[in-house]
């Protein structure tokens, strides 16, 4: 593949598929799935096949499919592919526009990860961002404005950052930018660019759009949270370590091997992980719960990117990958549940695990990944981030991350118990498992989680390639094990002995078949009642919530709302000038002229 083909295959092909499917109302999503599958296949086998190239499309577009863009492209395309596959049954109205925008977002995302100059990055970023806006608008309606406000803020920040880079270096290419910029210019440009990308990652305090946008159609949200939010990660990674590079980062001063410029971002990430987790614990709407959980998990990624050691950056990339897998499964699991019971409130569900065992198993594995249970690769990325923080003795970041991971157990159990275990609510006894086209996408994403738990060396080799490509450093790993300066872990030994221990426990437990007992027989001791609601799901963590109440009442979201209202009042006052009376306007012009003359005379 030449660089010419990159543009055609990964940008034009999905965009074309989108346009095509737009006109095929009934089969739109199926066609879109097919196109994204083809793009995914090309991406997967395109590893190391194309170098950097320049494409002339009115301006110079620098595209490249190197280790970094390949990894992110495969990840995003995989999530997009399965999300579309899941949508075939899930999306019932407006299939054409749905698949059009999904594929357009996919094309934009592919363009973003392939871009090696700021202008094409910005163009593709906007294509992606506006497609997402229209997808959010489709189902969230009014709440989409929260997203668009932040998307515009992000775009403006990116544009300002790009402007600073161009002003000083005269070049928009990443590699060209390093030469021209002084350290202070880098400081300004990097801050603007990173904050712009952080909006997409939903780092506190720029996260308020996420809970609303993540309440849209869940298959799209699987793509948004799993795939597209990783573009924020990609952006931060690229500006920090590809455009600027470790030497520039370390030029700001070094504190315990970590750039002083990166440290505040790492701290912000740890705070995000903590806040996102704590808020997620108390949500009753499962979409909001997963949204805050996404915010928290991407906080971990931000920690790794900010710390900037090979172990930390590798852990961040790995965690972004894991998050793409398990969070997409979770959102699709929620979609599957919604498809059957038509509710998103956890307190109205319960007991669905017995009726939908395959969905439950997929969600359970994803939860293992989210909680970092060592049977999935979710553990390994968290391990890398913890060890990176501990080996350099970051005594604020490390406890925040560790406690946040304990908090994650709380909301994980909330999902498992509230939705899948406990009592089945009345009227939901006849719920059936979803079809194979909904189960298959979930299980496709479960495979990497389990596979890379046993063979972490495979994925760490790719990540190592990326780190070497960006001159960050090397990871220390073998096929089954990995190590830091202070510790190590061997997954083959762990999983092997876990298997043995499990067999021993099963052998101890083997018993003759027993009678299944109805819940009422047991709990009500045989007393005949027609229906009692016996599911402790409403306001589950109430005692904890009471303790946190004074803090939870302070919401940054409401702070922004107050700020917005204040602006509204100000602009209402401004609006009073527009009286509609020509004489008033004539007076304004006269006044302006007077000011102009006076100021001009004064400045003379």
């Amino acid at each position: 593949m030449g660089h010419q083909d990159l543009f055609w295959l990964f940008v034009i092909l999905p965009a074309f598929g989108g346009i095509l499917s737009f006109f095929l109302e009934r089969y739109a999503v199926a066609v879109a799935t097919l196109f994204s599958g083809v793009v995914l296949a090309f991406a997967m086998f395109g590893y190391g096949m194309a170098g950097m190239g320049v494409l002339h499309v009115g301006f110079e577009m620098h595209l490249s499919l190197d280790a970094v863009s390949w990894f992110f492209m495969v990840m995003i395309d995989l999530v997009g592919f399965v999300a579309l596959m899941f949508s075939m049954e899930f999306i019932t109205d407006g299939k054409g526009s749905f698949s059009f925008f999904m594929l357009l977002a996919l094309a934009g995302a592919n363009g973003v990860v392939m871009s090696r100059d700021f202008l094409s990055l910005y163009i593709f970023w906007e294509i992606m961002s506006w497609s997402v806006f229209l997808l959010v608008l489709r189902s969230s309606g009014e709440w989409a404005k929260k997203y668009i406000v932040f998307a515009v803020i992000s775009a403006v920040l990116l544009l300002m950052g790009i402007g600073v880079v161009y002003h000083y270096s005269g070049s928009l290419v990443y590699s060209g930018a390093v030469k021209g910029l002084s350290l202070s210019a880098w400081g300004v440009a990097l801050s603007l660019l990173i904050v712009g990308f952080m909006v997409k990652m939903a780092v506190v305090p720029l996260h308020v759009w996420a809970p609303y946008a993540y309440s849209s159609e869940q298959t799209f949200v699987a793509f948004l949270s799993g795939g597209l939010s990783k573009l924020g990660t990609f952006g931060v990674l690229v500006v920090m370590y590809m455009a600027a590079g470790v030497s520039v980062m370390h030029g700001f001063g070094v504190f315990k091997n970590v750039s002083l410029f990166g440290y505040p971002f790492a701290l912000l990430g740890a705070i995000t992980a903590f806040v996102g987790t704590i808020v997620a614990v108390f949500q009753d709407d499962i979409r909001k719960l997963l949204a805050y959980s996404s915010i928290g998990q991407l906080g971990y990624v931000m920690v790794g990117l900010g710390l900037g050691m090979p172990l930390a950056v590798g852990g961040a990339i790995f965690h972004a990958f894991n998050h793409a897998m398990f969070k997409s499964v979770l959102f699709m699991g929620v979609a599957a549940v919604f498809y059957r019971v038509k509710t998103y409130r956890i307190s109205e569900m319960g007991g669905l695990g017995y009726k939908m065992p395959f969905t439950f198993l997929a969600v359970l594995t994803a939860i293992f990944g989210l909680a970092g249970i060592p049977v999935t690769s979710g553990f390994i990325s968290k391990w890398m981030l913890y060890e990176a923080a501990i080996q350099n003795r970051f005594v604020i970041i490390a406890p925040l991350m560790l406690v946040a991971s304990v908090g994650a157990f709380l909301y994980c159990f909330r999902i498992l118990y509230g939705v899948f275990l406990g009592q089945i609510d009345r009227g939901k006894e006849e719920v059936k498992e979803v079809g194979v086209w909904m189960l298959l996408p979930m299980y496709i994403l479960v495979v990497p989680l389990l596979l890379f738990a046993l063979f972490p060396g495979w994925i760490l080799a790719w990540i190592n390639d990326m780190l070497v490509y960006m001159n960050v450093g090397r990871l220390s790993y073998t096929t089954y094990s990995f190590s830091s300066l202070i510790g190590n872990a061997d997954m083959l030994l762990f999983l092997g002995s876990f298997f043995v221990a499990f067999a021993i426990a099963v052998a101890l437990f083997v018993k003759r078949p027993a009678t299944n007992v109805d819940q009422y027989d047991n709990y009500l001791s045989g007393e005949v009642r027609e229906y009692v609601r016996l599911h402790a799901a409403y306001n589950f963590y109430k005692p904890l919530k009471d303790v946190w109440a004074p803090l939870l009442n302070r919401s940054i979201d409401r702070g922004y709302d107050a700020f917005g209202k204040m602006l509204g009042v100000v602009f209402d006052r401004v609006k009073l000038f527009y009286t509609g009376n020509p004489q008033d306007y004539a007076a304004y012009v006269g006044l302006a002229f007077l000011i102009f003359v006076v100021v001009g005379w004064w400045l003379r």
Partner: protein
Amino acid sequence: MTVMLENWLVSALYVFLAICVGLLFGGIARKVTARIQNRVGPPVYQNFIDVGKLLTKKSNIRHNWIFDFAPVFALSGVIMILLYLPMGGYRMFASKGDLILLMYIMVIPALGFALGAGASMNPNAGVGVMRALTLMLSYEMPFVIVLLSVMIYYDTASLTTLLGKQFSVGWAIVALPISAVAADMALQGMMMEKPFDIPIAPHEIASGPLVEFGGKYLGMLMLYSAGGIVVETSLFVDLFLGGGVVLDPAVYGFWAYLVNYVVWFALILAVWLIAVFVNAVFPRFRIEQAFKFYWKWPTVIAILGLVQAYFLKG
């Protein structure tokens, strides 16, 4: 090959012994508590009789397959923890995984147990797990800070290295006494002894998560909790009391292992008895009180310990 098999057999022996020690400790706790409360109490081997009886019981009722999953997951998880935790200086897999891995393995049995409790459909079980998780969030705050202090002071996350360093330069309780205090406070909650037996509070929520488990299920879960006692006490001993290692196995061979095991046993018994004494005389907190308590005093103490570790290390 024979060496490997030998290692596996010795490891299995250690795990088996650990669970026996746990059952014995349960019996000791019942006896000691009874004597403190001026009762006679059951014999110390009562727990062995109970487990034997429960495991040989004919199967009774069940709920669903997730419910069956719980005891299996709980017991296999606790076996895994015991394999990764040095006991009496014997380091089975401890060099192949570190404290972070251990912390996460420690979640596995609890998670399996919680799944089964949830699948029992009893609201008391749900409330019990909610309390257990809230309690976990409470005591983990001081505990992770303590772990961090130990890890940055000794500059390692590996328990093997930690034991080695404590063997050569002295126990961590001498170097980091403040952290040890916070760790012991966290341990009381981790072992769910009073005043933190909130999740299993028998008088309020009918033993909480355990409520629907009987017969063979309960037998398996008794083995799990017996292993859990050894895990928690042993973790404290490994972190702060040098893991009970007094003789170097490289020099004294078999006798070193024997002596170390005896010392380790005495140390975990001491740690366990502190917990039992506190348990015998305290009433129960409410869960939000426990949360406030843990995020207040033990956390402050743990932070002081962290400051000490940070500056001693320089």
